[in-house]
């Protein structure tokens, strides 16, 4: 399978990714899940993300905890997680990385904002080996559920939703 390598945060021209494309991400990505993502959405609406060194334009939001057990995607369809996808796309996030299906409304919201939903197998032992740096940016008191910035190399994923199309069968 052909793999498209993407440097993130993505600052280039419009991407022409299709549902089913295999990608590898290189660069800095953000990690958050149920506890912290509603706070990040609120900050995006208030325009205060930059006060926490968060550059949302072209960013990857990885739905994961970050802990001594490593990283791996959690279920994206949990309400506090899926509820962050459209507002963070409106704020400029380009990729949302998780696992499982998302609703038609979220698929449409991604399309409206030219953003993508990626999935990756929950292979913690492999994914954690692709991570080289890590720091908590927002709500460190949430522990594993804080908002983290991590650096990844050749981080594998598949485009699950692009331009209103999904890889999931009915």
């Amino acid at each position: 399978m052909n793999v498209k390598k993407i440097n993130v945060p993505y600052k280039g021209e419009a991407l022409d990714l299709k549902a089913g494309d295999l990608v590898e991400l290189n660069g800095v990505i953000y990690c958050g899940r149920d506890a912290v993502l509603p706070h990040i959405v609120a900050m995006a609406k208030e325009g205060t993300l930059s006060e926490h060194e968060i550059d949302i334009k072209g960013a990857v939001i990885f739905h994961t905890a970050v802990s001594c057990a490593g990283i791996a995607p959690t279920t994206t369809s949990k309400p506090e997680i899926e509820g962050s996808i459209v507002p963070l796309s409106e704020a400029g996030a380009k990729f949302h990385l998780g696992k499982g299906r998302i609703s038609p409304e979220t698929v449409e919201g991604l399309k409206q904002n030219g953003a993508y939903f990626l999935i990756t197998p929950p292979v913690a032992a492999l994914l954690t080996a692709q991570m080289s740096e890590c720091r908590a940016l927002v709500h460190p008191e949430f522990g594993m559920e804080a908002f983290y910035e991590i650096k990844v190399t050749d981080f594998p994923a598949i485009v699950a939703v692009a331009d209103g199309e999904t890889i999931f069968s009915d």
Partner: protein
Amino acid sequence: MLALDKVTADVATAVVEASSHWREDQLACWRAACERETIPRAKWAMENFLKNAEAADLHHSALCDDTGTPHPFLEIGDEAVLPAGFLPAMEAGIRKGLNDLPARPMGVRGNELERISQCKGLYDEPGMLMPAPTQIRRIPGKKIRFTILMLGGGPEIRSRTQPIFHMHSLEHVIEEMINWAVPQVAALGCQPVTLSFGLGRTAVEASSLSLEAMKDGRYDVQSEIEKRITDEVNARGIGPIGLGGSTSVLATFIKIGNMRGSGFRVVSMRPNCCMEIRKASREWEAGV
């Protein structure tokens, strides 16, 4: 006399083994399914899962970052004697195992009301994740057998325990079980799964039997009904992490308990995620 420090040490290694190691029957099933897969992206996912299992086994590290909630299961011989302090020693072993792995620190701080909203945050120590209540069964002989099962969060969102009105038809109940499984397997995101079912008289009994089915289940020993459920869900083509493909379910484990004279059976279903069944056992001689 069974030494309590040995219990603690053995339980700790069982927790690490369960969290980092796939058993031979499990691996053989995965390899065969990967070999059969013809859709390239589905095969890519399956290969990643197998590489992950190899890496976790090599480093004794977590298969998944959701290391799960420990569910202890004890089988106690009719002639076995449990020494005083056995259960605290077992619980100390679970705590040590979670710290040794290390597991994800998921223990929630606070009193019983504060724990619901998680408003006091989490413990930093992985071992502060308390185990679920211990299941107990009796077995013949003088042994005590301990099994730890590590149950992740995703499957719990998709689990279901409800009555099925059997209409005096086994066929009807099986069809309902398949109808339950299909949408939950599709929605899980961690396919291929295994399915565990407990059938009993009450919700509590059925859930307990579903856990027992996980404890006893082997991927290479499948009854006709188990194989039928696996095949019928696989025919829907959901595939690894929902990418389409021939394997959405690797195996099905069913435990049927006692029934009562009534028009319903309580069925508990859990779609166990791709990293499960995470389990390991230890046995001790505990005669007088």
